[in-house]
């Protein structure tokens, strides 16, 4: 199978999903899991070759003229992500089929989920930056649709919109950044940028490009201060939260940072921006998590925290930090998806969303309890989980950080303690302690629901016990790809007694303290003043401001009065055409090619007078007659200045217009003076100005009018090529016959319009 097909398979299957899901019936929904499973096995086949240090590129031209290609690059980093997306995806699909069994729109759900999976795979595998952007936006879009899946709920709709607006704005920033980079580098292939990084990063625009790209990454990965959309996104069905909003999509920003680390890693802006943002997000997310009572929101804030840590580590960018980031990425994807799925099980089986209101479930749900304990242990960083290993590693990386190591370490210990408390709330609180009497009729969740969390929890533990396995196959190639140079890292379950281990122990002890004292943490009131300036309040204010502006602008501009629209258009045109005409220093010199005769002067005086009469007359008949005089006088001008065809046509049309007016005009209302004196005065001024500008425009165009090459051509070719001596007619029926064909069609349509208006009566 081809990589292109692997990426596109989700898109191809998605439109069929609603129909196919109905055909499968509710019992066979698990079949959907075969799609991601197949993809997982497909990407797994690349692992041995990648471990040997190979990489694969597949390129399909898409819009070659704009240098946009569907090119895919398979290296350690992208395949690690692809395996997470398809592997966790398989478990999620299985879970969702059971979780939404009997839901009337399960088919639509799978449509969106397949579309998301394909977009996410495209995002991590894309080699062309613009293709990456397209997939990036597709993930935002499918996330929007999935958060708003239960669209009857107002809160779901507004959360979906918020996520879309925030990540969409970031996406636009990313696109701008890409285009800037493309301008500097002359292409959109990321590997190409990588090879020319030396020239790229010294370019004065590189800082702007990087800042814009970082904006995109931060919004997608919910970094402070735009983190608020992620907890709100918990309106989505639980499988979506587990999949998009913890394991995969929110890591897109982190993926981007890892992908660009070899290019920008040495720039000052890189560390100076990413490290503080990541550090604040890391501890703030963890502290806010403890204050939540609902399981999903709790997990969402801890995800924000985890994303902060990943960002922070990639910002530091040392080999140890990148290693820690990759290990933590894997650990987090495994335990967080499991915990979300467990939250879903609790909600599904007990109908209770707050862990504090549950206790003693271990007897009724032994398998879920095992899965929860394993996953929570990894979250808390207890040995022998992969979480423990990653915690050791990131403490080490922070200790060795080139800037502010102590500050970062303290921050991390604080966040770590809060995360231990979160682990207690999710892994201990609901399952242990005395059984609640009202919960005693519960039983274990069905197999498709517990299978995913159990497998994820077990993998985390196995990886922690035997790190060499994942290290050789998955982590080393990913770290190598991120660093841009071979990495030699050896993970071990036991590092010996060292300061890092001490810090770990301190974190766990402190975490137990936070867990027992969580009541106090929650009771801490946020100062009123601060509450008014939270980022999400800022978002609300911004949105309201836009609405207010839109309403104001609609009220002012969209008056519904034709004459105000016209007045705006005329005044604006007068301004922008008149200003440069006025600015012309030399004035307008007159070219006198055609001298005046008495007859011309008479006509030239007659036309404005008749036009003025048409305006002034209060009788309709007189006004029409005056309009006729204008038309006939212009026909005479055509006659004088060598346009007999025009003169003839104008005479005929004027005569027919008279007949037309005779037939209709007297069934129309009489002239009425409806505008007030001031309005009339204003209109006189505006239209007089417009007339003046047109006059000046005519003169200045005449002054510079170059010889008309097209006319020369027509005149010379008329007889030899078109066998006609009347050049005007030859243009109409031969040279530009296609235009004339269009014009007579328009004419026919005008006739049809008149007929339809008069004859076809709409039923009253």
């Amino acid at each position, binding site marked *: 199978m081809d990589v292109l097909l692997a990426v596109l398979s989700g898109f191809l299957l998605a439109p069929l999903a609603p129909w196919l899901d109905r055909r499968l019936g509710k019992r066979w929904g698990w079949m959907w899991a075969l799609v991601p499973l197949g993809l997982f096995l497909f990407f797994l086949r690349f692992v041995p070759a990648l471990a040997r240090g190979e990489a694969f590129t597949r390129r399909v031209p898409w819009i070659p003229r704009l240098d946009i290609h569907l090119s895919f690059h398979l290296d350690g980093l992208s395949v690690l992500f692809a395996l997470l997306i398809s592997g966790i995806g398989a478990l999620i699909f299985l879970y969702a089929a059971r979780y939404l069994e009997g839901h009337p729109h399960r088919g639509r759900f799978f449509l969106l989920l397949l579309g998301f999976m394909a977009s996410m795979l495209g995002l991590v595998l894309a080699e062309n930056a613009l293709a990456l952007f397209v997939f990036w936006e597709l993930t935002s879009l499918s996330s929007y649709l999935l958060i708003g899946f239960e669209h009857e709920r107002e809160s779901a709709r507004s959360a979906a919109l918020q996520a879309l607006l925030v990540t969409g704005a970031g996406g636009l920033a990313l696109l701008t950044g890409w285009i800037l980079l493309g301008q500097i580098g002359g292409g959109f292939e990321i590997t190409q940028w990588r090879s020319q990084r030396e020239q790229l990063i010294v370019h004065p625009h590189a800082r702007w490009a990087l800042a814009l790209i970082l904006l995109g990454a931060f919004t997608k990965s919910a970094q402070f201060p735009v983190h608020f959309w992620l907890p709100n996104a918990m309106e989505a069905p639980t499988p979506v939260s587990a999949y998009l909003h913890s394991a995969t999509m929110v890591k897109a920003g982190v993926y981007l940072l890892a992908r660009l680390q070899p290019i920008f890693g040495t720039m000052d802006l890189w560390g100076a921006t990413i490290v503080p943002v990541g550090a604040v997000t890391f501890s703030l997310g963890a502290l806010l998590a403890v204050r939540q009572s609902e399981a999903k929101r709790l997990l969402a804030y801890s995800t924000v925290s985890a994303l902060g840590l990943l960002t922070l580590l990639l910002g530091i960018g040392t080999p140890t930090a990148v290693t820690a980031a990759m290990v933590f990425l894997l650990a987090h994807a495994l335990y967080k998806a499991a915990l979300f799925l467990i939250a879903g099980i609790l909600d599904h089986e007990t109908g209770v969303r707050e862990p504090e209101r549950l206790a003693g479930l271990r007897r009724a749900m032994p398998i879920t309890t095992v899965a929860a304990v394993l996953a929570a242990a990894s979250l808390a960083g207890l040995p022998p989980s992969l979480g423990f290993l990653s915690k050791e590693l990131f403490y080490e990386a922070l200790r060795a950080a080139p800037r502010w190591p102590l500050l970062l370490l303290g921050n991390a210990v604080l966040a770590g303690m809060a995360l231990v408390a979160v682990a207690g709330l999710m892994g201990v609180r609901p399952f242990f302690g005395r059984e609640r009497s009202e919960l005693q009729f519960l039983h274990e969740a069905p197999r498709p629901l517990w299978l995913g969390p159990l497998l994820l929890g077990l993998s985390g533990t196995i990886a922690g016990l035997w790190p060499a396995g994942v290290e050789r196959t998955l982590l080393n190639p990913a770290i190598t790809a991120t660093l841009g140079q071979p990495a030699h890292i050896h993970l071990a379950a036991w590092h010996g007694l060292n300061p890092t281990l001490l810090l770990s122990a301190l974190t766990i002890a402190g975490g137990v303290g936070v867990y027992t004292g969580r009541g106090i943490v929650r009771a801490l009131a946020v100062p009123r003043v601060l509450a008014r300036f939270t980022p999400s309040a800022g978002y609300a204010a911004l949105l309201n401001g836009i609405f207010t502006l839109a309403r104001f602008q609609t009220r002012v501009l969209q008056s519904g009065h034709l004459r105000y629209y016209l007045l705006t258009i005329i005044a604006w045109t007068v301004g922008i055409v008149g200003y440069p005409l006025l600015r012309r220093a030399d004035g307008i010199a007159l070219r006198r090619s055609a001298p005046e005769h008495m007859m011309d002067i008479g006509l030239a005086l007659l036309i404005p007078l008749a036009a003025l009469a048409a305006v002034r007359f209060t009788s309709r008949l007189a006004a029409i007659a005056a309009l006729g005089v204008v038309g006939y006088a212009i026909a005479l001008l055509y006659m004088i200045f060598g346009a007999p065809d*025009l003169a003839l046509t104008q005479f005929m049309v004027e005569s027919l217009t008279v007949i037309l007016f005779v037939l209709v005009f007297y069934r129309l209302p009489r002239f009425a003076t409806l505008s007030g004196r001031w309005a009339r005065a204003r209109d006189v001024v505006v239209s007089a100005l417009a007339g003046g500008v047109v006059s000046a425009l005519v003169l200045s165009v005449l002054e510079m009018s170059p010889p008309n090459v097209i006319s020369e051509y027509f005149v010379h070719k008329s007889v030899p090529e078109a066998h006609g001596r009347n050049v005007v007619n030859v243009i109409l029926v031969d040279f530009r016959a296609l235009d004339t064909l269009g014009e007579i069609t328009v004419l026919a349509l005008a006739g049809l319009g008149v007929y339809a208006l008069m004859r076809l009566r709409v039923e009253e």
Partner: protein
Amino acid sequence: MELLLAVVIGSLYATGLYMLLRRSVVKLIIGLGLLSNGSNLLIFTMGRLVRGRPPIVPEGESSVPPPFADPLPQALILTAIVISFGVLAFALVLIHRAYQKVGTDDLDDLKTTDT
């Protein structure tokens, strides 16, 4: 002559636009007529003003001996004249029907789609 014609065109634009700005819907038609005449004359003047030399090749020759009036604007205007007749008819009928239906000629009363 160009100066004179520029003034003529300007006056047609001014009067036409003034009529378009009126609230009485019938005056709009007059404005439309003035404006289309003005535009045609504008295109005509932008070509070349050549007295009495239409772009017609004399019998037996292969090209028009200069100077001659520019044929291209003439071709443009010729169709424009006929089409503006169609447009004028359509506008007249539209206003006629709207007046029949709504019973007002004040554009301010025709703001909404509700009758």
